[in-house]
Structures are given as structure tokens and as C-alpha cells.
């Protein structure tokens, strides 16, 4: 039963107040994209055993979306941050590096 702190309203919300939204920092591929890119966008999700970035919505709360950096094997939470970002901010990356030196996720490290 996860607890994630919503960066929008500051509440340490428990899982039942939140809705999971899948992989974070997806690049939307619309018309003009190749079949491969479109498949990548919709289906080829990151599924790591370890550091993962994902989207959550504080649905039973302020209603806002946010990002979380989490370990899928230990459920350790490295931090939460704004949904209005295209990549994890440095302080989150540093927090991860402190706990998981040498981590990689997609092109991020």
C-alpha cells in the first residue's frame, strides 16, 4: 500500500487516494509517425525491475497529475515531482543515484 506525496497539494496520499497512470515521460506520436514509433508510444512500455518513472493522479484529492520515481522491486520511493516536465529533474536523479548508483532508465541516468 504505497504512500506518495503529491507535489501539487503536499499531501502524503495513500494509494486509495491515487490513480496510477503508467510510464512517465512518454513522447506522444501522432499522425506522421511511423508504425514503429506509434507502437513504441502505445505498447512498448518500460517494465524494469528496479528504478522506474511513472505518472500518478491525485484523484481523490487535488485531482492533479504528478510524476513519481520508484523502485519496482523494493517499492522505495525516490521522490515525486511535477507532471509538467519532459524528464526527471536533477534533484530526483541525485536521490536515485545516492540509493542506486549507476542506475539507467531509457536515456536517463
Amino acid at each position, binding site marked *: *500500500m*504505497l*504512500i506518495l506525496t503529491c507535489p501539487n497539494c503536499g499531501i502524503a496520499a*495513500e494509494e486509495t487516494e491515487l490513480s496510477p*497512470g503508467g510510464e512517465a515521460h512518454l513522447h*506522444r*506520436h*501522432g*499522425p*506522421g*509517425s511511423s*508504425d514503429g514509433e*506509434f507502437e513504441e*508510444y*502505445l505498447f512498448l512500455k518500460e517494465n524494469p525491475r528496479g528504478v522506474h518513472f511513472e*505518472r500518478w*493522479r491525485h*484523484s481523490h484529492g487535488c*485531482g*492533479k*497529475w504528478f510524476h513519481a520515481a520508484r*523502485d519496482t522491486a*523494493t*517499492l*522505495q*520511493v525516490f521522490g515525486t515531482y511535477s*507532471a*509538467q516536465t519532459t524528464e526527471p529533474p536533477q534533484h530526483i536523479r541525485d536521490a536515485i543515484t545516492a*540509493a542506486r548508483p549507476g542506475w539507467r532508465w531509457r536515456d536517463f541516468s
Partner: protein
Amino acid sequence: MSTRLAQGGRLIDRSRQVSFTFDGKTFRGHPGDTLASALLAGGQVVMGRSFKYHRPRGAVAYGVEEPNALVNLGEEGRFEPDTRATTQEIFDGLVAESQNRWPSLDWDIGAVNSLFARFLPAGFYYKMFIHPRAAWKHLFEPFIRRSAGLGRAPRARDADRYEHFYAHVDVVIAGGGVAGLAAALAAGRSGKRVLLVEQSGHWGGRAVVDGARIDGKEAADWVADAVAALDAMPNVTLRTRAMAAGVYDHGYVLVHERLTDHLADKSGLRQRLWRVRAGRIINAAGALERPLSFAGNDVPGVMLASAMRDYLVNHAISPGDRTVIVTNNDDAYRTALALHEAGLIVPAVLDARPVADGELPERARAAGIRVETGRAVVRVKGRSHVTGVEVGLHVGEGSVLEEIACDAVAMSGGWSPVVHLWSHCGGKLNWDEAQAHFRPDPERPPLGADGTGFVRCVGASNGHLRTGDGIADAVAGAAWATGADAGKAPAGEDADEGALMPVWLMPQGAGVKLRAKMWLDYQNDVKVSDVQLAAREGYESVEHTKRYTTLGMATDQGKLSNINGLAVLSGALNAAIPQVGTTTFRPPYVPYTLGAIAGSAARETFMPLRKTQMDSWHVEQGAEFEPVGLWRRPYSYPRLGETVKDSVAREILNTRKNVGILDASTLGKIIVKGPDAGRFVDMMYTNMMSNLAVGRCRYGLMCNEQGFLVDDGVVARLSEDTWLCHTTSGGADNVHAQMEEWLQTEWWDWQVYTANVTEQWGQIGVVGPNARKVLEKLGGMDVSKETLPFMHWAEGELAGFPVRIFRISFSGELSYEIAVPAGQARGLWDAILAAGAEFGMQPYGTEALHVMRAEKGFIMIGDETDGTVIPQDLGLNWAISKKKDDFIGKRGQQREHMVDPLRWKLVGLETEDGSVLPEGAYAVAPGDNANGQRNVQGRVTSTYHSPTLGRGIAMGLVERGPDRMGEMLEFGAGADPVRAKIVDPVFYDKAGEKQDG
């Protein structure tokens, strides 16, 4: 035969009597008795029958770990099976019944199983009942099912109430023994929020029974003072009869509290499930004593030494005049001494160890008790109760040196820390050679959200079996949990104890005949020989052995049997115990009711039910409701003597002939506003919405990124920068969430605000040829087709109500949808009904709505769509903008399979004889596919009897359907397939003349 002694019993109140029945026989006990202690007091040693062999069994333990003494408790709405007699406190009028026996506890037919025991070894059923095939289901399995199971199945609905309670604390402490109390005192002084829970009804745990001393006081007095001190701390919450059931990730702890199970008065709340969020968790759950594996260790009268002591000290229970003690450690001598001091006879202490010269053995000898070292119980004599033991050398093979007559046996194989809460979230264990048990590995705790350990075991649950060590460990644990200095630990003193000697088989060299009578898992009848068989057959992993033999899978979840079984397995595999490993502990620590898990979500609060402002009116009209999402909507309004089928037909005909009224309030209504709102709605809908003129309405389609149609509805432009999007009733919340998701996570630089105003507005459909007359009679607005043409909307006052009127039609008839602030919706509804009376107005429900839209060839989300259908399949290309270079779903619709010319497309279907096509029927095509399935070329998506046309009508998706008008298709298979013709999906008013009235 057991009985109650004239003196003693620290928990019982002899001044009062409590009367209850067991198997119909009346017993008497005292307040403070458990069902087990009261039955023992009444000489009832046999309390149940085992699962597989139906052997007679008595209580072997004192608490939650009891595998044998399980009963059916209570009656009717308060009947429950499998209740532990050892934890159920008695109250006046308690009714209990023994289980798993027929016709009676003493004469159980099922006991024949035990005659064949040697032919029913572990996993026997995997090896037999294979032939003939049908026999398993019809013969063998029914027999096994009947003889398995334990208690009776309840029949009645639960008469009790349950609730949840969410608590957020800094520290949860599980266990109210002296370690838990010491930890709570230290943690409490730090000022942190502390919750201390104890599963039994009493504080103090073992120390008060074993007569330890703390800070120079009797343990009992120290405990009383500690509880008083804790009670006085505002930041500390204390609970008895509250069991810490499980530890979940991120400090989530479930605590099961029993409020009335021990009372005769059941009027109050029965149980409460605490859903606790804790920063740190201290597990002070103590340790459990292990049985010894000797032949006949399951005969009623054989008991754990500590349990016998508990019954004696707490309830003044004599297990019998003569009790033999058998042990591999010093602690069991406490039982010998207690029995001796109570004036009972201890013919001998049989100690497997070569030497026993610790303080306790010496005290026993000094008391004149015969202590035999290097000795073992070879076999217990007696069947339904102990009559004696055969004694031999522990290092021998079981030759009998002597027989000792006795009526009880107290056994102790050492102690195992209760590490469940530590293990639930992955805490690892180390094997402690000296004490022969698993204890928490402080280096590998369960990790919390911050990546650090969030559970710590203290006291006996951390392997500190001595009072002094345990308390010191607990206080250190409190310091860890609070991050504050915990101060000096109270000093605990108890007798010095010599080393234990691991004994997994007694006697050591016991042959196969004896091993087949040594029980490991009492309830499931798993014996030493079974575990050895599993190992021999290659079920070497401890999980394999457990599952193959069912060891540890009984209602005690292996509390008594896991370690002994594991040791036997490691012996059979010639591997060290830690190499063999241990099985995973899963919540709950002790089973608790499903009712408590459901909590208050029962009956009227089971699930939310969304109601419109007109709901009470619908009820008064005797409407049949149907659930739509969480809403309920009138399905139809049958009148007296009318079937629902009749009333649906009547509602349709009347609406088409006169005028109908529909409660459309559940329709989703979302406001989209801002400089970029037009651009945004263009992305959300397949068609162009930005160029919609203010005052106009347009039907729109919403797809997901896959391109599949997910919602539809009418969009109205309210002002330059504001659109009102109507969605399906079930879809409003999803659509709004989708919009917010795109705005917050993809186009956050766009200036758009949305608001879901679905519930702000009641919405009333006035539909039919007389609709305009009704509105004109209500007055206040010009609703003529000139001022308010089709697909326009207007704002104004209708009969004094502030409204928005939308000229839209889902039935093909002249139709006004009137939005009014929800608070005034019922008022307007009544006004419309009054005005409509003279024009033959009648309400209609969702089924009439569905039929009328089908007659008109309009699609319905969820009928024509199912998550795999794109708008192009439904001939809705006109609603898909060619001009826009992007919208949600556009790319998805360009994929290979989506542009396949062979996709099934929407058509109308008409049976030759006018009958109604079967729901969901498929149109067959010639031949079978490669998997031998009949080929198909289409399917029915909606099918109804049309009262308007007096025949069956249907819509369906058919391969190249629109190109095959007039073709006949065969639906369904088997004897009589139904033939139907492909026709235009618009069955009624093709010209569209009706919508203007």
C-alpha cells in the same frame, strides 16, 4: 482426566459462574476462562477431530497457535466455524459444538480413515483415483470434499456490524507482554504517537505466568503499573483483543480488534479493522513453544509444557493427577515445579539432554522430582486420552526401558520467535544454532518507502528469551523507533537457563513404524514419515514439501509445525536447516473475519448509488431501475398489470404519438473554457468543434489514442471561449479525467480550464410531436423552430425556471433537452408533467430511449461500440474531420488493420418473418477456420422489437456490409439459424421530417 483445582487461577473470578454448552451438554466456568480452560475444568479433554484421519484431539496449546481444539460457535446469524477454543472467552449462553465428526465426538465414522492411515500417506491422492476418468468428479472427489473441511458452513446472513478505522501513528507496537510494555513506555515518553496492541484480553504475556521479577517487583505488579502509566499518556493508545494481523508496504499495518466476541451482549459493533499507517513498527509478539516429535504426541492429554503451565497458573486447571514432562531445555522444568507446587504428581521429567544441571533442573531435583536425562518418550499410550508413556534412551531406536503410568504429558522442544510481522514485507531470517530457531537478521529488514528498515523485532520475537534481555532489547527498539533516547531499561530477573539441545526426532533412531506416529502438523495429520516421503520423492524444496504434504497449511498456518517439519526435511536431505530455508509468512498472523475486511461497506453502504433529483419521483411511479455506471436510471415505468415489455412499448408509442418526458440528468456535462479551448476540443473530438458558432450544437465523437470510439455527445458553444461538452452517462468522469490528463501532462502550455458540471444541472428531455406545445404552455421562451431551430440552444426562463434549452434529438422526434439547476430540477419536472398532461405526456425510461434511437439508426456507445470499433466502422466518416492534421485517435486509425477493406461495418438487419434477432448473434460464413471454428462475417450489435414498426429491427457489423445491401445472412448455428436481410440502419423517418414537429 483434567479438573479445576480448589485454589489459584490468577485470571478467573471464582465468585461468579458462567454457563455454556458444548455438544449440547451444559458446562460451567468462571469469568476469565477461555472455552478450552472451562472445558478442561469440566473434564472434557477431547475437543475435536483431526482433518484427515479424524483422530480424537484435545487442546495442545493455550493460544492462537492451537491446531486441534476448533469448534462451531454460536447460532443462526452469529454462527461461525473453526473458532479456537483456546482464544474464545466464555460468556453466559455461549453455544459450542465439536467439528469434523459424525455422528458424535466420541463415535466418529470418519475415524475409519485412521485404520487405513498407512495407505493414505502424503500426496496419496496424486497417485490414485486416476482411473476411471469420470470417477474423480463423481465418486472420489465428493467423498474427499465431504470428509475434508472442518466446521459447518454458515447459512444465515451475518447479524453483526463491523467498521474500519484509519489511524496514523509514529510507532505501532504489536504485543502487550513485558517487552511490548517496556517499549511502549519508552516510546511514549518520547511524545511520539504510539499504538500498543495485544491480541489477548490480558497484559503481561509469559512473564506474569512464569513469575519473573522486574525492577524488583513481581512481574504482575510491574505490568499493572506500566499499563496505568501508559493509560495516563495522551499520546499512547492501548488496545487489548487487538491482533496485529499483517504488515504491508510503506508502514501499513492492519490490526483486528474484537469488541463483543467475549460478551454475552452482542448488541454493539462486533469487530473493528484498524488500518494503521505507522512510521516504525515494533514486533513484540513473543515466541511460541514447539512440540517434540515422538510417537503418539497427538493423544489428548499431551500438551505443550508452557500451555499446561498457563492453564494451571491462569485458570487453576489440573491436566491430571500424574503428568510426565518431556523436554530438551530448562524452561519445561517450570511446568514441573508449578505442577508440583500445586500438589500434583510429576512422576518424571524425561530430559533428552545427557546433562541437565541448570538452576531449574536443580530446583526440580531439590523438590524431589525424578529427573531422567538422556531419556525419551518412545510412545504415548492411550487413544482418546493418555494412560502412560513408554520410556527409552533418546539416542536409542525405541526399545522400551520402562513404562510410566500418567494421564498427561507436557512437552517442550524449545521456542520459536514469532517473526511473522517481520517477514510479511520481506524481512529475512538467520538460523540461531544455540537456540535452534530462526530469528530476524538485523542486516536484512523489510524496507520502507525511504529504503530503510521499518520493522524491528524485540524481546522473545528477536530471540531474547530471558526477561531481562528481552526488556533491554525492547527499550533499544523504542529508541530506534522514536529516534529519541529511551532512557534506562527496567531490570528483569528470572531463573538462569542452561543450553537447549535440538531434538527433531524422539528417540533419535526411531524406526519407520514410530515415525509414522509422530505428528508434525496436528490438524492436517502430517507426520514425520510424510515429510521424509516427500523428500524421498524429490519434493525437496521446502515449498514443495509443504504443498505435497500440506504441512503448515492448516488453520494454525504451521505455528507449531513449520520448524519441526523443516528440521525433519533437512535431516532427510542431509542439508543444514538454513540451506533448506523456510517458507514465506503471509498475512494474516491469525485468521480474521471477511466481515471485518468488508467493514461498514454492507447493505445500504455497500457501494455508492448515484441518484438524480427526480429519483424519488421515479420510485413513487414504481419505476424499474437499471444501473448505469454508479447511477441508477429508470429502465421503464410499468403500470399495474403491465409487464416491463408492455410498458416499454407503451412509452415508445406514446412518445412518438404524443409526448414523452425523460430524466436525462445523468448525461455528462463538461465546461471547457479558455483562449486555447477551441484548439483543445478539436483535439478531443474527431470532428471540427472550433468553428462551431455560438448558440449552435454539434454531435461529436471521442476516440482514444488507439482510434477506438469511446464516447459521444452533443457539444454546444456557449461563448467565444467556452464550450459545453455533453458525454454519455457512464462516461462523464472518464472524459473529464481524460481532458485534464491531456491538459496537465501533454499540453500544459495551453490555456484551458475544464469543470465537470454534470451534477450542477438537472436535464429533462421533452420529446414527441406535442413537445413544443408543452413548452409553449409553460411559457417564458420562444421555442418556435424559427427562433430555436434544430441543433441550436437558447438560454432563458421557462415557467420561471432558469434554463438552457437544447434542440437536439436522440429519438428522431421533435425534442427539447432542458437543463435547469439541479436544485430546481424536480420543480420544473413537476411543472412540465402538469403542463404536459393535456397533451398525453408520459415518462419513458432507458429501454424506450434505446429502442427509439435504434429505430432511427443512431448508434449507442457500449452497444455498437465495444472498444474495438472505430467511427469509420459505423459509417460516421461525416463526423471525422479531414481538415484537422491531428486529433486523439487519428494516428491509430491509420494502422494496417484499421484501414482493412474487410472490416465489419454498420448496417441494419431485418429478419424475413419480422422476428427479433437473438442478442449478440453472429452471421456465419461458409466453412471452418484452421482451428475448426465456424467462420463468421458479422454480428448483431443491437436488436429490439420495434413497437413503432411492429417488427424486429437490428443493427449489426457486417464484413463490407454497406456494399451488400439486400443480401441475406444466416445468424447463429445448429438446427435453426435465423435469416436476415442487410438493410439501411435507419428504420424510421428516413427523411428526418419528424424532428421539427
